[in-house]
């Protein structure tokens, strides 16, 4: 029996593996980390079936609230209850402080980068970021050149994915600057967890997050076009068949704004209106949950029925604000990601507080040779994808898969980057009636309006399958509530 453990806890832990991956709850010698003691005690002192009973109660809460997600690639493609784990993931106040400062710095630099590239391009002239990289990015939008955006804010809503390395350090794996999702799960997880472990929650003193919708609303309002004191803010959704539709309805309801689809909108004289039973109502701010490509058939994909023709012209005329701006995918391209530390130094004259993960750019000869020689040890990702798709996880791949990826790399090297396989941190999860560790990441949500706001914590995503490194919800990952301690 290790220090600080009771018999009950040992029984719960069972054969809990501890290796070089950082375990959120336990040090490498098995000791409980200080801030996890209270949680461990609670788990140890709960009567045998109490934990299961609480799990069932939480399951029911999720079910009745209809918190669902559509998983592509499975047979039904229907709604199912979003998988979650009962045990909260804890972050200390000191750890959070660093994350908050680091992300604030990072998002400021990314925003400046977007503004720069879509106007004078100084960073390109100074050869800090290669021109070809930017202009060959499929998410670069020429139409955004020279376009003024309110407060010069391009990225109003950002979700950055953090991993914790073996040394305990948080690093940024990627930024999501287009249409980041998951915040509704963060909010509903919290609601359910407060009911599941009320005493524990109270005793810990957890920083609140429930104000996210209010902060989001204030952020959107702060970006409204000038001269519109009571801006009409809407959430533009692709509709019921979108996998994140639940989140769209949830946020619209929490903010008290209308949920609209492209077909509800019309533009006239470069002003966007929505069609209501009380006539046409002018729209001032659109919180866009539709990708660039589908937003305006006159400017982007002409075959899209999800957008509004003329929207971009209204945007260019400054008559409507769209958050996030178009063309932000340039800065969350995985190849451009490699340059973010350089952007921080260039625009802010500071060292990055949060580091990047080591990244090989396959468009560079030297990197490419190294990667092709070590495919079985690396993770290769397509630069413009999200959701964990278009990815090769070297150590878990077959020879056939690696050969296929090698072929794709040769054909289009610009489209790929590679990173070392990271044994990122694990947190204890309730699997059956035991605690077992599973890999987790952390996605805080950053809101950028008249100032930068980061709600404490974010979504902790967990790879629920044993040994899996894929946390994305669209591929069967789950989530945990994140408690940032006071």
């Amino acid at each position, binding site marked *: 029996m290790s220090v600080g453990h009771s018999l009950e806890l040992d029984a719960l832990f069972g054969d809990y593996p501890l290796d070089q991956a950082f375990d959120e709850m336990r040090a490498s010698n098995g000791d409980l980390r200080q801030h996890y003691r209270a949680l461990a005690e609670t788990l140890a002192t709960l009567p045998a079936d109490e934990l299961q009973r609480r799990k069932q109660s939480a399951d029911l809460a999720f079910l009745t609230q209809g918190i669902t997600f559509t998983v592509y690639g499975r047979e039904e493609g229907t709604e199912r209850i979003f998988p979650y784990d009962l045990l909260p993931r804890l972050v200390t106040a000191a750890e959070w402080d660093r994350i908050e400062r680091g992300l604030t710095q990072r998002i400021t630099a990314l925003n400046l980068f977007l503004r720069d590239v879509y106007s004078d391009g100084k960073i390109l002239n100074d050869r800090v970021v290669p021109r070809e990289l930017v202009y060959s990015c499929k998410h670069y939008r020429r139409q955004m050149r020279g376009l003024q955006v309110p407060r010069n804010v391009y990225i109003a809503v950002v979700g950055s994915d953090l991993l914790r390395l073996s040394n305990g350090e948080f690093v940024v794996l990627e930024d999501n600057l287009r249409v980041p999702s998951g915040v509704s799960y963060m909010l509903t997880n919290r609601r359910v967890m407060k009911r599941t472990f009320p005493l524990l929650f109270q005793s810990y003193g957890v920083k609140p997050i429930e104000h996210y919708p209010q902060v989001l609303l204030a952020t959107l309002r702060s970006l409204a076009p000038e001269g519109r004191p009571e801006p009409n803010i809407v959430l533009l959704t692709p509709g*019921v068949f979108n996998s994140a539709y639940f989140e769209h309805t949830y946020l619209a309801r929490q903010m008290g704004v209308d949920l609209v689809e492209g077909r*509800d909108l019309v533009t006239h004289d470069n002003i966007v209106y929505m*069609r209501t039973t009380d*006539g*046409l109502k002018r729209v001032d701010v659109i919180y866009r949950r539709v990708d660039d490509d589908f937003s305006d058939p006159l400017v982007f994909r002409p075959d899209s029925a999800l957008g509004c023709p003329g929207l971009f012209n209204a945007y260019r005329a400054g008559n409507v604000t769209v958050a996030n701006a178009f063309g932000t995918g340039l800065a969350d391209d995985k190849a451009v990601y490699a340059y973010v530390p350089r952007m921080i130094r260039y625009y802010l004259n500071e060292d990055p507080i949060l580091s990047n993960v080591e990244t090989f750019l396959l468009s560079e000869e030297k990197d490419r040779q190294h990667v092709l020689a070590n495919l079985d040890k690396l993770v290769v990702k397509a630069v413009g994808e999200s959701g964990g798709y278009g990815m090769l996880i070297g150590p878990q791949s077959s020879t056939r898969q690696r050969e296929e990826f090698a072929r794709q790399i040769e054909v289009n090297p610009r489209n790929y980057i590679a990173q070392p396989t990271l044994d990122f941190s694990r947190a204890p999860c309730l699997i059956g009636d035991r605690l077992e560790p599973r890999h987790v990441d952390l996605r805080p949500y950053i809101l950028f309006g008249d100032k930068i706001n980061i709600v404490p914590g974010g979504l902790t995503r967990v790879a629920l399958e044993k040994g899996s490194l894929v946390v994305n919800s669209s591929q069967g990952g789950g989530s945990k509530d994140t408690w940032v301690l006071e």
Partner: protein
Amino acid sequence: MLSRVADSLYWMSRYLERAENTARQLDVTMSLMLDAGGTNEETRWQRMVASLGRPANLVWDGSFESMARKLIFDSLNPASVTFCINAARENARQVREEISTEQWQRLNRLFHQMHSPHAQAQFSSNISDVLASVIDGIHLFQGVGASTMIHGQGWQFIRLGRYLERAYATATLLEVYQPELFVTHEREHTGYQYLELVGLLRCCTAFEAYCQVYTADLTPDRIIEFLLLNRDFPHALRYCVDCIRIAIESIQGSGRRRSSEELAAGIGRLHAMLGYTSIGEILSGDPATFLHTIREQCLRIHELTYRHYVHYSIQSALAV
């Protein structure tokens, strides 16, 4: 509210009313057929189809059971009960945020019921049972809606859809039946004629209510008077028109912009047609034309509502 949302709520409601009407007419037609005398199966089927507004693709194939199965379960046939319930649910799904969770769950349950093997088994043993559970399911939905949904503008569109559909269907039914009702003017009827009259009332769930008002003495003129002019019975045409008027007035009054005069005139005219006449006047005139006019007015009200609240042109909306 968004025009698209009003449109979906309206049609959700209309399709459910249509499903209920179809189920009920089929049930009555079936039970009339049990008492063979006089009319043969095909004739009865044709008359029912006429009462349903002559939907296409219901060509008599010789077997009542096979026709009934089609009319209940064929989701490709727009006249079928299943098609209507599917359409209602699709509409509800698009505006799930506007209706209560209970409403959605009820409708969803009804949908799954229609598609379950159990429904097919029920059909094989007793067609009436299937039809009864459809009607029950729709009543449950309406009841749950009435108590769990906010009675705002969305609710008024639901009411408008229901009563417009019902008014139109009742006028259609009467237009089809009324020539036959006056074939014989005697007050004594043969047993079969009595059954036909009861059948007509039951198509509108009106038999017991009629008896409360007039006693069990069924005469064609009183039946038509009841189904047309009674202001208290929910399936009577006048009652429907009253509800339509209340819904429209509520919708017209709830916005900030000018209401539609044409629409107000349209419902006013329809209301007057039924509110200031007597059965004697109607019957001494041309009842067929009277009923036809009512149907036309209903269609026009639909058109005017859509023109003003849903499909208005941008130019007209911005000119205000």
